[in-house]
């Protein structure tokens, strides 16, 4: 079900009305309408495969309660008068062992379902339809369970509320991977929709739709023509053009979809976690990953990277390396290895295909190398007298990071890894600007795209760039417009609506959300 469709419009209208009625009649139980919306949405799109979601919900709900109970019992026990320190320590250890065992079993169970459906079956050439949002809610389940164990928050006693956290419908299509502590309050509190809130949600969704349809969908055919399984022989200039457009398409498609989901969620008073923070203004790849797909990046950081590097054997190893090779060595080697593991997982999270693993490793290797050589770069900068905070060096770093991301597109889009590598090599060894320009010209004559589509995508991209630029400076254009007189808002709104509608007429076909497939 597309967000921009009659089915979704009717769905959302029905549940907004029910939600408002519930808000008046029984505000404390208004969340049950949200739950009903989530379950209905799931049933409509995924039918009987809801059992996988229910199974995950039951395990983490029950698991979190047991973990909580064990911690509570342990605390109670430790209050028993006359217990020695040793006994207290032993009791804590025992409790932690039990908790960890339980967490391990539940995580393995949830990941096993994900692995079986998403990786094993496709590898055995028996692809199955994945339960809706499994890649997203599986990670949400893990974060909830681990946070309850870490006593970040109390375990939720109400099963319905846990289920709502996992099946909140706007997040099911392509995320974000919401955190319980950030979204939980909004999910369960009473909320009343009013005109300004409705308007705000509408603007966010509208801008998201413009990104998705006027940029993402209009660029997609060009990207497909440039970057495909037969691209190995194409000139580098043509490939670079395709990869450049892919970077824009991917951002527009993904962030546009998230904005639309965000707008839908805001109608129910639920502010979902941010997933992007102007990623193409990053000065390094590591920073890029803190701004791009934030919910996945932060999940990997909090539940894979940190637990790994702070685990006893690894931190011991880091200290040993530091002692032997100097202070930076431990960080560089262990950090590098950790990054490779994290990005291999990020790659695999996208799918079982080899090129995703390659794409993940590409990111991991560059981050590891840049971290390892950071002192050397700092020394070079000092020697050359380059001001680290200067505007020039910042622009250079932004451009450099963007190009690194653009090159990553070869491994992200193109199926065969060999072809991806050949394309990467062609960018440097067989650039051939003349042939590339000729091939770009044929995109219009071969009917891949049209002047109208190209102009529309350009205008929308410029708008997106200006919007990002303002946001980077700390100004929210949306809120800026929102404070203006109604006719100014209307002009903006009508312009965006016309751009959106016009983009459909020049589009050669509607594409789904890229990340919905993950």
């Amino acid at each position, binding site marked *: 079900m*597309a967000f921009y*469709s009659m089915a979704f419009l009717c769905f959302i209208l029905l549940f907004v009305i029910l939600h408002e009625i519930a808000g008046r009649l029984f505000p404390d139980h208004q969340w049950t309408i949200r739950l009903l919306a989530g379950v209905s949405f799931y049933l409509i799109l995924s039918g009987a495969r809801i059992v996988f979601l229910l199974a995950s919900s039951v395990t983490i709900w029950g698991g979190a309660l047991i973990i909580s109970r064990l911690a509570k019992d342990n605390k109670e026990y430790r209050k028993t008068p006359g217990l020695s320190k040793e006994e207290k320590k032993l009791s804590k250890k025992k409790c932690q062992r039990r908790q960890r065992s339980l967490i391990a079993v539940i995580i393995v169970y949830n990941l096993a379902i994900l692995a079986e459906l998403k990786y094993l079956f496709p590898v055995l050439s028996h692809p199955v339809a994945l339960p809706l949002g499994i890649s997203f809610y599986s990670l949400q389940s893990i974060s909830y369970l681990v946070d309850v164990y870490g006593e970040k928050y109390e375990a939720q006693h109400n099963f319905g509320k846990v289920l709502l956290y996992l099946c909140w419908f706007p997040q099911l299509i392509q995320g974000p991977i919401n955190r319980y502590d950030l979204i939980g309050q909004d999910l369960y509190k009473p909320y009343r929709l009013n005109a300004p809130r409705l308007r705000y949600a509408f603007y966010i969704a509208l801008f998201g739709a413009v990104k998705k349809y006027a940029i993402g969908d209009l660029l997609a055919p060009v990207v497909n023509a440039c970057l495909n399984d037969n691209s190995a022989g194409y000139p580098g200039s043509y490939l670079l053009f395709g990869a450049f457009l892919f970077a824009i398409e991917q951002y527009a498609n993904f962030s546009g979809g998230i904005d639309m989901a965000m707008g839908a969620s805001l109608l129910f008073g639920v502010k979902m976690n941010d997933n992007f923070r102007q990623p193409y203004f990053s000065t390094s790849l590591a920073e890029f990953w803190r701004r791009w797909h934030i919910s996945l990046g932060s999940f990997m950081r909090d539940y894979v990277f940190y637990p790994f590097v702070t685990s006893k054997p690894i931190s011991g190893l880091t200290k040993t390396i530091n002692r032997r090779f100097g202070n930076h060595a431990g960080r560089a080697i262990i950090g590098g290895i950790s990054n490779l593991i994290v990005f291999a997982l990020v790659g695999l999270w996208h799918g079982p295909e080899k090129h995703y693993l390659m794409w993940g490793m590409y990111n991991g290797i560059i981050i590891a190398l840049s971290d390892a050589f950071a002192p050397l770069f700092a020394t070079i900068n000092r020697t050359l007298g380059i001001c680290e905070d200067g505007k020039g060096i910042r622009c250079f770093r932004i451009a450099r990071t963007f190009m690194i991301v653009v090159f990553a597109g070869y491994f992200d889009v193109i199926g065969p890894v060999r072809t991806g590598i050949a394309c990467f090599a062609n960018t440097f060894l067989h650039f051939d600007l003349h042939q590339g320009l000729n091939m770009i010209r044929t995109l219009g004559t071969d009917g891949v795209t049209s002047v109208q589509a190209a102009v529309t995508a350009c205008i929308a991209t410029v708008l997106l760039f200006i919007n990002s630029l303002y946001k980077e400076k700390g100004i929210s254009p949306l809120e800026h417009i929102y404070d203006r007189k109604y006719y100014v808002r209307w002009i903006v709104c009508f312009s965006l609506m016309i751009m959106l509608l016009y983009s459909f007429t020049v589009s050669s076909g509607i594409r789904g959300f890229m990340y919905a497939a993950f």
Partner: protein
Amino acid sequence: MQRSDHIKRILKALLFVIIFIMIMIIFDAAFLMDEGVTEDMLADYSVKTGIETVFVGNSAGEMLDADSYSMMTGECAFNMCTPSQSLSVSLGNIKLASSQHHVKKAVLLMTFDTVGPEDYDAVEHLYYRVVNSSSPYHKRITGTIRNNMKQSFSRDVVNTESSLNIWIPWENETVHGLSNVSNALKKRVSRVISGDRLGKDIAYDLNTVIYPTVPDDMDADETNLLENDIGLVSELGIPQGLLADDKLTDLARICSYCSNNDIDLTVMITPHRSDYYDRYDSFLENVTIADSYLDQFVSKRGFMYYNTEEDEELHVKLPDEYFYDWEHVSGEYVDRSTEYLTGIIQMLE
């Protein structure tokens, strides 16, 4: 909140909707897809009397001038061919003409694209609007709403972006290029200023014509036959992308309608430039298979199928310089192509 604030807010919302509708109306005029060709054709049709023979099909069929044909044969003919006319619209045209005239003969002038997988939704939408434009206003609105609802909530569409875009008329009728836009605007404005409407009420209940829910023109046996025929497409090894099942269904419906209403139907693949088959490597081979299948398909239903390529003298009588592209004859040679096609039609009789 005070009552006056409430009223103010409601008025603002109303004003917003009104402005939006006005913008959509302007866009609607500017993006009229075929620059009014369908409108012109139906305007001419509405003042025509005593039609006996009707030509339907896509723009390639415009190479047959109905007035010249009438002069040569003595039959009162009218050409209802329009750009990218789909088979369901052709059926609509035959039904429209036969419901208002005593039509004895119909000639379907088509290219292989007509029975291919290309989507003609936009044209059908446009046709529906134009045909209904002479209806009383309330009928037009209710008809449009009824049809849009039917399409918008249909199983295939309801989950897609099209389900909302159906409600924006110009979404389905878009022309590209500034000159097309200005032509369309000029035409629409001049029509409004001159008050030039379709002369006769040609409004027709198109729910059963263009968007039928059941194949109403076929009895149960024939529906089965159609299914069997469609099954043959794959059995004969016709490459995918050349013949589309839904188009064959429409062709079967045209045959069925003509059969039930005593209309003599001729299905004809129109002449084309000699390099027409050079478009794709395997095109000719595929076309031969499709051609033979269409021949069987139409003949089985008791009508005549003719591919002008069968005529060895085609490219002598209609040399390449008569065509301004693969399949469209230049205006100055239409008398030649009319003469040629009239001869073929008479020969087939």
